[in-house]
C-alpha cells in the first residue's frame, strides 16, 4: 500500500469521525497558537526595544559616569558620580588621540519646569553641544538647531522635543516664541522631529535641548561635569576600536586602572542585550507554559488514537484478514495521528495569525510572527502526531486478525 493510499485512508478515517477528530485537534490548536503567539509577543517586544535603541543614533557609544563613594563610604551605584566632564568630551573629540571617533556630544541633563504663557510642563533639560543633533541622529520638524556661536556665548535659545512642544503650545508654531526655563527666558528656535518609536511614550520626544553653557547658567552650576557623553564612531566596523580608544583615554585622564574605572561605556548592542534579557526570560516562561499545553494536546492525540484502535478493532482484523501486513496497519494509524497533529498545527497557526492581527489593538503590544516560528510550530505539531501516534500504531499493528475479528 503506497504512502498516497495510506494518506488517503487516513484522511477518510479522520473525516469519518469529524467531531472526534475536531476535538482531538483542539488541544494541538490551542497549544500551537499559544506558543506561536507567545513567541510573537516576545519578538514584538524585542523589536520595539531594538527600534528604540537604534533610534538613539547609529554607531553610538554611551559613556556614563561610574559610582560615587561619599565620605561615609556609601557607594552610590552607576551614574551617581560626576566623574565625567566637558574636558573628557573635548579629549575624546581630539582626532589624534581617538581617530575612530566621528563626533562627541556631552550631555548634562536635569528635570526642569518650562512655562509658556498659561501652560507649564516639566521635562528633562538637555544641555549639550551642536554635535548632539548628528550624534543622536535627530531631524528637525521646524526651525533650526543652535549654532556654535550660540553655544559659545550661552545664547538663550531652546530646541523642543515634539511632545514637549505640543504640551506647551496647543496651537500655532512654537518657533520664535519665548518660554521660561526654571526662571530664565529662552527663545524657541526649533522643534525636533519625532523619533517614531513612541509606542511606549518614548522620552526621546519629550525634551528641551539648550546649549551646554546655557544649561549651566539656567541651573546655576559652575561644575563642568556632564551626565553622559554620547560618542559616534566613524563606522560600525570601527565601533570596537573607538571603544578601546575612549577607554584608554579616560583611564589615563582619570589616572585609574581598568578595575577601578569610574565610568562605563555601553554600546547600543549591549543596551539591546540587557533589555532583551528580561524579555527573553518572560518569553521563555510563557512559551514554557504554552509548550505544556502543547504536550497535553499531544497526549490528547494519543488518547484518541488508542480509543480509535480499540473501537476499530474489527476493522483492523478485517483489513489484516484481507492482506494488510502489520506494518501497513501500523503505518495507517501513524499517518492518521500525524495528519491530526499537522492539521491541528495548521489551524493553530491560522488562529495565531488572526491573533497577531487583533491582539496589538487590544493589549497595545506589538506581535511579530516570523516564518521560522510558524515553520517550527508546524514541525512540532507533526512531530507530536508522529511521537504520540507510535504507541497506538504499534498496538494496532500487533493485534492478531482472529482476536480482532472476533471481538464484538
Amino acid at each position: 500500500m503506497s504512502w498516497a493510499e495510506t494518506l488517503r485512508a487516513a484522511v477518510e478515517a479522520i473525516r469519518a469521525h469529524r467531531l472526534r477528530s475536531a476535538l482531538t485537534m483542539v488541544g494541538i490548536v490551542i497549544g500551537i497558537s499559544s506558543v506561536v503567539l507567545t513567541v510573537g509577543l516576545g519578538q514584538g517586544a524585542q523589536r520595539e526595544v531594538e527600534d528604540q535603541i537604534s533610534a538613539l543614533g547609529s554607531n553610538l557609544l554611551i559613556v556614563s559616569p561610574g559610582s560615587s563613594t561619599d565620605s561615609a563610604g556609601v557607594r552610590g551605584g552607576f551614574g551617581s558620580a560626576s566623574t565625567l566632564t566637558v574636558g573628557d568630551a573635548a579629549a575624546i573629540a581630539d582626532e589624534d588621540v581617538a581617530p575612530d571617533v566621528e563626533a562627541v556630544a556631552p550631555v548634562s541633563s536635569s528635570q526642569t519646569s518650562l512655562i509658556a504663557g498659561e501652560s507649564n510642563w516639566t521635562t528633562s533639560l538637555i544641555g549639550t553641544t551642536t554635535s548632539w543633533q548628528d550624534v543622536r541622529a535627530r531631524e528637525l520638524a521646524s526651525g533650526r538647531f543652535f549654532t556654535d556661536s550660540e553655544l559659545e556665548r550661552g545664547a538663550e535659545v531652546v530646541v523642543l522635543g515634539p511632545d514637549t512642544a505640543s504640551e506647551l503650545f496647543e496651537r500655532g508654531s512654537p518657533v520664535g516664541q519665548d518660554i521660561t526655563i526654571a526662571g530664565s527666558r529662552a527663545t524657541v528656535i526649533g522643534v525636533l522631529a519625532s523619533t517614531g518609536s513612541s509606542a511606549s511614550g518614548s522620552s526621546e520626544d519629550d525634551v528641551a535641548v539648550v546649549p551646554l553653557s546655557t544649561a549651566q547658567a539656567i541651573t546655576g552650576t559652575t561644575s563642568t561635569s556632564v551626565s553622559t557623553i554620547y560618542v559616534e564612531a566613524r563606522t560600525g566596523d570601527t565601533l570596537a576600536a573607538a571603544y578601546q580608544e575612549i577607554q584608554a583615554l579616560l583611564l589615563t585622564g582619570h589616572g585609574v586602572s581598568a578595575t577601578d574605572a569610574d565610568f562605563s561605556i555601553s554600546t547600543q548592542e549591549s543596551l539591546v542585550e540587557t533589555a532583551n534579557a528580561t524579555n527573553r526570560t518572560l518569553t521563555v516562561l510563557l512559551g514554557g507554559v504554552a509548550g505544556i499545553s502543547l504536550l497535553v494536546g499531544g497526549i490528547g492525540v494519543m488518547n484518541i488514537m488508542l480509543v480509535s484502535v480499540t473501537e476499530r478493532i474489527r476493522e483492523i482484523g478485517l483489513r489484516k484478514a484481507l492482506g494488510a501486513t502489520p506494518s501497513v496497519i501500523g503505518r495507517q494509524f501513524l499517518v492518521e495521528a500525524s495528519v491530526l497533529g499537522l492539521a491541528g498545527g495548521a489551524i493553530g497557526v491560522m488562529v495565531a495569525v488572526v491573533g497577531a492581527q487583533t491582539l496589538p489593538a487590544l493589549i497595545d503590544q506589538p506581535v511579530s510572527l516570523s516564518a521560522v516560528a510558524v515553520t517550527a510550530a508546524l514541525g512540532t505539531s507533526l512531530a507530536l502526531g508522529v511521537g504520540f501516534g507510535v504507541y497506538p500504531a504499534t498496538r494496532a499493528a500487533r493485534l492478531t486478525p482472529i482476536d480482532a475479528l472476533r471481538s464484538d
Partner: protein
Amino acid sequence: MSAAARRGRSAQRTRGANTAPVIELEGVRKVYRSGEIEFEALRGVDVAIDEGEYVAVVGPSGSGKSTLMNILGCLDVATSGRYLLAGEDVSAMSERELALVRNRRIGFVFQQFHLLPSKSAWRNVELPLVYAGVPRTERRDRAVAALERVGLGERIDNRPGEMSGGQQQRVAVARALVTEPALILADEPTGNLDSASTADVFGLLDDLHAHGRTVVVITHDHEVADRAPRNLVVRDGLVTEDRRFVAVGGVRR
C-alpha cells in the same frame, strides 16, 4: 459469457490433469494455552483438498472446526504439523508473510459480513486489491466486475447500511472473489441470513464451484453441508469422517 466465467471453464477442464491439491494438511495440531491450562483444539488433522472441490467442514461447536478454519485461512498458525496452500508451506511463516498469502490466495466470507460501514460497496470490494498494490482505476473496474458477478451491478455506490443482509453478504462474496483467489473460505456464510438470502448466497457459491473455484464452507448446519459434494466431519479436534457424494446435475444423490 463473462470473462470470469470463461476462466472458470478452463480451470474446470484442466482440473483432472492438475493433481497438486490446493490444501494439504499433515498432522496439524493446535494447542491453546491460557495460563496453566492447555487445550488441544486440533489433535493431528490430515486433509487434502483438490483444486475445484466444494467442501463443507461440519461439526458441532467446540469440535475444533473454527480453529481449523483459522488455520486454513492463514489467520492462525498450527502448533505443529505442516500446511501447504497451493503448494506453498505456510506453517512457519511470519505474520507479514501470512498477510501476503491471505491477500493473494484466500477470499473470505464471514458470518457477520465484516463490511466497512463508511465505505460504498465497490470501496469494500476493492479493499484486498488496495493491499495487493493494484492501481486505483484497475481496482474500480475489477470491483465493479465482481459486484456485477454477484448481481449487485446496480448498487456499487450503496453503503452496507443501505442494503439487506443478503445483499451485504453478496458484497462480501464479491470481495472474496475479486482477487481471483485459489481458495474461497466461507465461515457460516448464511448464519445471519433468512432462507431466501441463504438460497441466494448458496446459489453464488455453487456458481463459483461450477466455474472451477475451490470452495470451503465451515458450518454446523447439516442442511448447508448437504449442498456440498464432500463433507469433512470434525469432532474433538479430529477429522472423523470424510464423506464424498456423487453429484448428478448439481444435485446430490
